[in-house]
C-alpha cells in the first residue's frame, strides 16, 4: 500500500513538474525549416523579436533531403512540435486540404498583403487553390533559379577572341538559351578538367523538375493548365519537346559524374573551378560571394535565366511561405509574430540579414538592388517566375516526372517526344485518380 501511495505521489509530482515547465515555455515559438543559411538568418531575426517582446523564437532545422518527410510525419501525427513551418510552395495543396495549415485569408486581407508582397510570391507561396482568394501562408523567403558564372573566364581576351572566331558573336553573359549552350560547349575541355556548365539532375526530389522548368518556361512551354488540369498538348507540346532537348543538350557539357547534382554540387562547380556557369537557387548565392567559402568569390558573376528562342523569359520558382500549424497550441502567439514579420521595418531587417524578402517595396528599393552582386538579377527574376503543381498529390507528379525524364536525360533512352508523351499520360492518369479530370 505504501508503495502505491509513493508512486502515485511521484506521478503527481512529475505531472506538476511537466505542467509548470509547459507554463514557463508559453512565451516561445518553434519554427520548422530546412537546414540552410536563410534559416540562420531567420533565427537572428527571431532574436530581435525576443528582444522586443520577450517571446523566444527557436528555428528548428533538418537537412533538405528529409525536410518534406519530417514535416509531413509531424503533420500527419497531428503533433504540436512546431508552431510555424516555412513550407515549400508545392506543399500548399497538401497543407491546406489536409487541415495542417491555419487559414490566413482574413489576416491576408486585413493587412492587404496582396499589395505589400510581390505578386508572384502571393500567387505561388500563399494562395491555394489558384485564384481562389484563399491564403495559407505569408511569403517569407523569395527564391528562384538563377545562374552564376566565372567572370575571369568570360573576360579573358584570348577566350573572347577564340569564342568570336568560332561562334561569330561576342562572349558575354548569355542573351538566350542558344548562347548558353554555345558558351557551355566552348568551355567544355575535359583534357584541362574544365567544363562548360553545371545543371540540376538529381531525381530524388524536385531538382530535376526545377532545372527542366527553367528551359521549359523560357521556351514558352507549360506543365499544363493549372485551372483545368489538362496536360496533353501542354507538357508534350513542340515547345516543351524543344525545351527538353535543349536541357539534355546542356548535360553533355557538365563535369563528369553529374548525374545526381543539386545545389551543393552546383555551387562546388564554381568553387572547385569545374564549370564556367552554374545553375542554382538565389538562396545559395551568398556563399559564392563569400571569400571564405568560395576562393573565386571576386571572379563570380550572376545572371537571370536567359530567354528562349521566342523571347519568353521565365524561371523556376523556389522559395517558401510561413504557415501556422493547425495543431499548435500557441496560434495566437504565432499570429502576433506574423504581424510583426510583415511590417516594413522587419522586412528591411530581414533583407539586411540576408533573407530574400518578398516585400515589393523593399525589392524595388535601390538599396536592396545594389546591396549584393545578385540582388538585381533576383529582383528581375522574381517578377517572371512560374512553379510546379501545388496540388496535394504533387509528390506523385514529381516522381512521375523524375521517372520519365531522368532515363532520357542521363541514360539517353527514347526521344524527348516519347518521354513527354508518356509523362502526359502518367499525369493525366494521376489527375483522373484524384477526380480532377474526367
Amino acid at each position, binding site marked *: 500500500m505504501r508503495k502505491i501511495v509513493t508512486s502515485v505521489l511521484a506521478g503527481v509530482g512529475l505531472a506538476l513538474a511537466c505542467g509548470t515547465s509547459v507554463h514557463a515555455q508559453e512565451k516561445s515559438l518553434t519554427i520548422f525549416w530546412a537546414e540552410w543559411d536563410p534559416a540562420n538568418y531567420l533565427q537572428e531575426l527571431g532574436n530581435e523579436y525576443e528582444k522586443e517582446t520577450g517571446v523566444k523564437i527557436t528555428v528548428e532545422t533538418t537537412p533538405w533531403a528529409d525536410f518534406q518527410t519530417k514535416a509531413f510525419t509531424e503533420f500527419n501525427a497531428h503533433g504540436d512540435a512546431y508552431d510555424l513551418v516555412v513550407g515549400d510552395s508545392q506543399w500548399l495543396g*497538401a497543407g491546406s486540404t489536409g*487541415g495542417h495549415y491555419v487559414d490566413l485569408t482574413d489576416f491576408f486581407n486585413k493587412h492587404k498583403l496582396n499589395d505589400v508582397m510581390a505578386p508572384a510570391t502571393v500567387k505561388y507561396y500563399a494562395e491555394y487553390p489558384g485564384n481562389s482568394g484563399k491564403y495559407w501562408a505569408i511569403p517569407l523567403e523569395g527564391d528562384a533559379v538563377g545562374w552564376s558564372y566565372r567572370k575571369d573566364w568570360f573576360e579573358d581576351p584570348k577566350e573572347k577572341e577564340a569564342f568570336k572566331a568560332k561562334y561569330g558573336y561576342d562572349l558575354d553573359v548569355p542573351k538566350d538559351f542558344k548562347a548558353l549552350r554555345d558558351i557551355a560547349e566552348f568551355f567544355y575541355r575535359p583534357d584541362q578538367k574544365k567544363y562548360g556548365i553545371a545543371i540540376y539532375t538529381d531525381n530524388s526530389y524536385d531538382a530535376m523538375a526545377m532545372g527542366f522548368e527553367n528551359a521549359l518556361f523560357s521556351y514558352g512551354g507549360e506543365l499544363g493548365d493549372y485551372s483545368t488540369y489538362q496536360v496533353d498538348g501542354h507538357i508534350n507540346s513542340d515547345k516543351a519537346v524543344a525545351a527538353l532537348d535543349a536541357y539534355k543538350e546542356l548535360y553533355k557539357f557538365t*563535369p563528369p559524374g553529374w548525374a545526381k547534382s543539386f545545389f551543393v554540387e552546383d555551387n562546388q562547380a564554381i568553387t572547385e573551378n569545374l564549370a564556367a556557369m552554374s545553375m542554382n537557387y538565389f538562396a545559395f548565392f551568398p556563399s559564392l560571394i563569400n571569400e571564405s567559402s568560395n576562393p573565386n568569390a571576386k571572379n563570380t558573376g550572376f545572371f537571370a535565366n536567359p530567354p528562349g528562342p521566342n523571347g519568353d523569359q521565365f524561371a523556376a520558382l523556389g522559395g517558401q511561405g510561413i504557415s501556422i500549424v493547425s495543431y499548435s497550441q500557441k496560434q495566437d502567439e504565432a499570429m502576433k509574430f506574423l504581424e510583426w514579420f510583415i511590417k516594413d521595418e522587419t522586412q528591411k531587417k530581414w533583407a539586411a540579414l540576408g533573407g530574400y524578402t518578398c516585400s515589393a517595396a523593399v525589392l524595388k528599393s535601390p538599396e536592396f538592388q545594389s546591396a549584393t552582386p545578385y540582388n538585381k538579377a533576383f529582383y528581375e527574376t522574381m517578377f517572371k517566375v512560374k512553379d510546379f503543381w501545388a496540388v496535394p498529390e504533387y509528390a506523385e507528379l514529381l*516522381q512521375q516526372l523524375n521517372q520519365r525524364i*531522368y*532515363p532520357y536525360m*542521363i541514360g539517353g533512352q527514347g526521344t524527348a517526344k516519347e518521354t513527354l508523351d508518356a509523362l502526359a499520360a502518367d499525369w493525366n492518369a494521376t489527375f483522373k485518380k484524384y477526380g480532377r479530370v474526367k
Partner: protein
Amino acid sequence: MATTMITTLDRSSRAAARGLSDISIRNLFIIPTILFLIVFNIFPLIYSLGYSFTDFRASTNAPANFVGLQNYRDLLNDPYVWSNFAITAKYVIISVAGQLLVGFGVAMLLNRDIPMKGLLTTLLLLPMMLSMAVVGLFWKLLYDPSFGIINYALGLGTFEWLADPKMALYAVALTDIWMWSPFVMLLSLAGLSAVPKHLYEAAAIDRAGPFYTFFRITLPLVAPILMIAVIFRTMEAFKTFDLAYILTSQPTAELISIRLYKMAFQEWQTGRSCAMAYIVLIMVLAITNIYVKYLNKVKER
C-alpha cells in the same frame, strides 16, 4: 510440461522465499517482451494489412475507402515496380555471391597459423562495424570521377561509377560486398575451425589432392554455417536501402525498398505502399523458406 523445459528455481533463493514459482518468474521476463512485440510489431503488421486494401493517404483528412485488391492489381501491373524487383534480384545475386566468394576466400586464407592472426581478423571486421550511411557517404567520395581515389589508383581517368546507368548497381553491390564480406568471413572461420583435424590427416594419408579435400571435406562440413550466412545476407540485401539511397539516384539502381520509401513517405500513398510492403514481405518469406528447407537438408547429410 513447461516446468521441465526450464531450470528449476533454487529452493533457497530469495525469489523462492517470496513465493514466486518458476512459471511466474518466466512470465515476468517474457510478458513485457511479448507485449512490446505485439504493440510495436504484430499490431502494425495487421493494421497495415487492413490499409493495404484501401486508398488511405496519411497526409490528408480524406477518409480511407475500401478498394479491394485494386492496390495489389495496380502494383503488379506497374512496369516500374517489376523493374524494381528485377533490379533488386540482380543486386541480391551479385552482392551475396560476391560476399560469399570474398568472405569464404579470406576465411580460408586466415584459417592457418599465421602471425598476428587475431589482429588481422579484427581489422578485417572493421567495415562491418561502420554505419551504412557513413559507408555510403565515404564510397560516394571514393567513386567520385573528378577526385575519387578509386579512379586515381586504378588509372581509370574520369570513369563514372555512379553516374553511368549500367554501372551504378554494380558500384552499390561492390560497396555492399566490401562492407559485408567480413560477416561471411567470420561465420566461415567459425565453421572452418570446427572441422575436425583428423579428417584432414586421414585425407593426407590417403593422398587426397587439395581440391578433393576441399570439395569432399571442407565444403560439406562448412556448408550449413555458410547457408546461415547466405540467409542473413539475402534478407539484408533484399532490404538494402540506405547504401543505395545515398550512393546513387539512378533508376537502374532503384531497389524495391527505395521505391517503397518514396511511395510511402514522399508521395504519402499510404494504402498502396502498405500493399507493396506486403508483396515484399511475402517474397522475403518465400525465399527464406526455400533456404531454410535447403539448410535442413544440408544438416541431415
